[in-house]
């Protein structure tokens, strides 16, 4: 599997897993403890100012010292209320439970005192669990007090799982059944403002809790119960204040942990003061709804997940840290806007997703490297290099070392190839697809005075190739021109050297074209030799033939005598010599290309062409053809010339009035079908010395020396070459009755179905 696909799947898995985990954590609020810790720290940063109208009347150590052990007689509260009534406060919240009847006189005195306070709100409380299976029992203040009070409010505190009071329930109970109870502070607010608070009205249901913004510890103005009760406080000081009365002395146990970050506790009455502040300012902190919470938690994780594709690991870790800060900052900013975004899940997501992805990526990369290295070792060219044994190291290190070896191997290989290319005996250069020279070996560099590297191919050609051949070379190198197998172009360089240039495609492993390699071979000498040879052949085949033809034309007008006959004979010999020589040379130079030839016809025509010669000496050529239309695959002109040579010889060596017999047959030899042509004369036969070297070049036939007949020493050599070229054979021998007999065997051509008649 390709690395990219594997990584893609791993990434998808990590992304899904992280998203699900975050969703689950957010849904079940599993990280509330951690979130609370952060909340405590963040909420301390910018505490709200205290409400100036609040005045706490504290049952503090001084009061205890003055009045003795708690609980006090209700007479004492009655005395306090009298003092308060003088000061005309706006409202009074009395955070001391009066649920049990006490001394009747005292209770009466207190109830009496209460009547002078129109805005007194008294606490009720709940006993959890309630009796007889009820959820809770409500404990009201005893009847005279409850009747005297302007309102009743519950004083339940809401503890988080860590036992810290962060929230408050403005309402307790069940609104639907009418058994719901506003908080004491809500009642105080109502007694001042004569309406329920906005926060209370917004409550979705009665049991919803709200996060309280706490002011600094001790920010609320507080006076000692004792001081107030003993009349030491000026009345004006109480005017229009909201008085909250409660215990603050450590020994009274009305102390609770609060999120002030210092780990300390706060007296219940001070918590109430803070709660009142929240109600009055209407700045309770509302946790984000689940959907927004989830979206905000997922956002940074997806930023990171997407970033994994683009960023280097170091960038990723910096970004991760940045995201953590951003999340915290977001929480801090939102808290100022009274919204609580719990950052725990997002932070955990970021912290988890980074190593998990790192692990999966490493695994995928490691697997990929493993398979690539295996493939590399399987397919590498065997140039021996040292491969040190790897000690027991961890897998990734091992792979990295192997990769290092592979790279150094490739570097060696490249070096090797580069050296090989650079020192090639012929010029060579490489171009890319834009026609730029990207590499040129030493010889190619030497051809260019200013160096060939990074040169455009056209410029290079302009400098190197002679003007005459430039266009041809450019046509060859035209990028549309697709290289074929035997594809090359010849050109003359500016220095007069002749080169053959061949282009080969450079392919990538995937099979796409990357560029071209151009090989140049210096063929100056070969080309000169070929040219010289062509000139010689031209001379022989045309320039020398022409005067001979002219001689024969001249002689034609004359009356035939011995001299003209001999001149004509020499002229014809010269022609035959030239024809055979040129024929031989052409055979050596050209490639064999056969066509269907009806051999009996070819032999008949060769024989016909020599008829005037034979007739002059009254010699007959008798053809006995039993080949039944046998075709051979051959070159008509060389075969024709061969049979003319053979029959011509037979006629020459025949006695006047003799018969040349030509037998054409189909024979089998080594399971192959051949057409055989046997040409026999009635002459003196071939001498023993000559038999062994009949077909050699310029073999001087002593038959010729003896007779007056002159042959052209090339004739039989030519025939032998032609037969060899056709995959045939020739042999020369003497027949039983003494004459020479030449037998030619040519392979029968493959059958072709006849189509018409």
């Amino acid at each position: 599997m390709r690395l990219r696909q594997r990584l893609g799947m791993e990434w998808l898995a990590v992304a899904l897993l992280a998203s699900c985990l975050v969703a689950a954590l957010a849904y079940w609020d599993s990280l509330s403890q951690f979130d609370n810790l952060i909340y405590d720290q963040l909420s301390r940063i910018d505490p709200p100012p205290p409400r100036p109208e609040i005045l706490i009347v504290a049952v503090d150590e001084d009061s205890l010292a003055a009045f003795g052990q708690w609980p006090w007689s209700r007479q004492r509260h009655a005395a306090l209320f009298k003092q308060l009534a003088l000061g005309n406060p706006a409202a009074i919240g009395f955070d001391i439970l009066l649920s049990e009847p006490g001394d009747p006189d005292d209770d009466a005195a207190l109830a009496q005192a209460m009547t002078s306070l129109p805005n007194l709100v008294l606490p009720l409380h709940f006993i959890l669990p309630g009796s007889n299976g009820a959820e809770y029992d409500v404990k009201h203040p005893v009847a005279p007090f409850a009747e005297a009070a302007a309102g009743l409010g519950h004083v339940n505190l809401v503890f988080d799982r860590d036992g810290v009071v962060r929230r408050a329930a403005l309402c307790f109970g069940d609104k639907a059944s009418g058994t719901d109870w506003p908080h004491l502070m809500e009642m105080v607010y109502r007694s001042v403002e004569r309406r329920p608070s906005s926060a209370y009205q917004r409550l979705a249901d009665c049991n919803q809790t709200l996060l309280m913004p706490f002011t600094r510890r001790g920010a609320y103005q507080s006076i000692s119960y004792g001081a107030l009760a003993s009349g030491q406080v000026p009345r004006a000081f109480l005017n229009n204040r909201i008085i909250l009365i409660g215990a603050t002395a450590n020994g009274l146990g009305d102390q609770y942990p609060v999120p002030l970050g210092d780990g300390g506790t706060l007296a219940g009455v001070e918590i109430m003061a803070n709660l009142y502040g929240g109600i009055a300012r209407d700045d309770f902190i509302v946790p984000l709804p689940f959907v927004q919470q989830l979206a905000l938690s997922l956002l940074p994780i997806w930023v990171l997940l997407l970033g994994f594709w683009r960023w280097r690991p170091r960038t990723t870790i910096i970004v991760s840290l940045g995201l953590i800060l951003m999340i915290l900052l977001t929480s801090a900013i939102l808290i100022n806007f009274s919204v609580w975004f719990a950052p725990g899940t997002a932070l955990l997501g970021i912290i988890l997703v980074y190593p998990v992805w790192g692990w999966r990526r490493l695994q995928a990369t490691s697997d990929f490297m493993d398979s690539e290295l295996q493939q590399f070792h399987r397919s590498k060219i065997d140039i021996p290099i040292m491969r040190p044994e790897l000690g027991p190291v961890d897998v990734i290190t091992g792979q990295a070392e192997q990769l290092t070896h592979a790279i150094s191997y490739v570097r060696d290989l490249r070096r090797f190839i580069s050296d090989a290319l650079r020192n090639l005996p012929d010029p060579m250069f490489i171009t890319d697809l834009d026609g730029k020279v990207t590499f040129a070996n030493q010889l190619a560099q030497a051809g260019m005075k200013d160096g060939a590297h990074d040169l455009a191919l056209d410029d290079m050609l302009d400098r190197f190739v002679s003007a005459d051949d430039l266009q041809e070379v450019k046509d060859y190198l035209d990028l549309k021109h697709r290289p074929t197998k035997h594809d090359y172009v010849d050109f003359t360089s500016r220095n007069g050297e002749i080169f053959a240039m061949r282009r080969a495609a450079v392919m990538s492993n995937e099979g796409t074209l990357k560029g071209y390699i151009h090989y140049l071979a210096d063929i100056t000498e070969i080309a000169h030799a070929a040219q010289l040879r062509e000139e010689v052949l031209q001379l022989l085949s045309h320039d020398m033939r022409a005067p001979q033809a002219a001689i024969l034309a001249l002689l034609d007008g004359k009356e035939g005598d011995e001299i003209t006959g001999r001149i004509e004979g020499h002229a014809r010999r010269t022609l035959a010599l030239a024809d055979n020589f040129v024929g031989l040379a052409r055979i050596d130079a050209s490639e064999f290309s056969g066509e269907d030839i009806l051999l009996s016809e070819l032999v008949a025509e060769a024989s016909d062409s020599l008829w005037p010669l034979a007739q002059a000496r009254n010699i007959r050529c008798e053809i006995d053809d039993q080949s039944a239309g046998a075709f051979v695959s051959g070159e008509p002109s060389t075969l024709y010339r061969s049979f003319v040579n053979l029959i011509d010889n037979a006629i020459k060596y025949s006695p006047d009035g003799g018969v040349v017999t030509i037998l054409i047959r189909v024979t089998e030899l080594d399971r192959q079908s051949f057409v055989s042509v046997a040409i026999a004369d009635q002459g003196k036969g071939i001498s023993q010395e000559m038999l062994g070297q009949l077909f050699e070049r310029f073999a001087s036939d002593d038959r010729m020396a003896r007779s007056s007949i002159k042959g052209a020493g090339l004739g039989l050599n030519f025939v032998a070459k032609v037969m060899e070229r056709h995959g045939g054979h020739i042999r020369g021998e003497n027949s039983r009755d003494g004459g020479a007999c030449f037998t030619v065997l040519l392979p029968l051509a493959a059958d072709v179905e006849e189509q018409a008649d």
Partner: protein
Amino acid sequence: MRVAIADDDAEIIEFLGRIVEGQGHVYAGYADGTSLSSALLRDTFDLVILDWNMPGKNGMQILEWMKSAVEDRPPVIMMTSRTAKQDISDALNAGADDYITKPEDKNVIAARINALLRRNNGASAMEPKAEYGNYLLNRIEQTVKHGEKEVSLTAKEFELTDLMFRNRDRTLSRRYIMETVWRTNAHLATRTLDMHISRIRSKLALKPENGFRIFTVFGYGYRLETFGNGG
């Protein structure tokens, strides 16, 4: 009739001229291609004998030039001392009506010249019977008599024989023969024609002793040549 002979060799012009005059025609000789081409523009000839290698324009160039420049182009015989098969078929395919390789027998040359002049003056009307040397063709009965002997031929063989005799001493392309005898443009197996030629050669004994020979122009076609009293 007038024959133009172009050759850079005066001996050859003289030799050919004698042959032309021997046949009762007149000739004009030109030593190079340029003078020939200007003569062709202002003069009328019934036949042009053209040497391949000449100063000025060579034979092939003149052939090419004549195609466009000369109205009512006379037939052309290419003379050449080149013997390569490719050269010959090139010349014929370039528009030469026939070719002669140097050196060639004067009787053969005379026959070839006559064959072209004959054609140029309209082929002889199709007589019911025609005699060529020792051969008597009966076109109604589609029979051939060689001397006293009746030769049995198939219909195609007769048509081929008739075509070759009517066009004796003229080089016919394979394609021309195929289309005339087989009346088809379709690509026939080349062996079919080879076999038919072979059959009429042996059935009619077309060999020099009998005044005729069939000559294969490799890569182009065939020619029935007359010998001695043949034509």
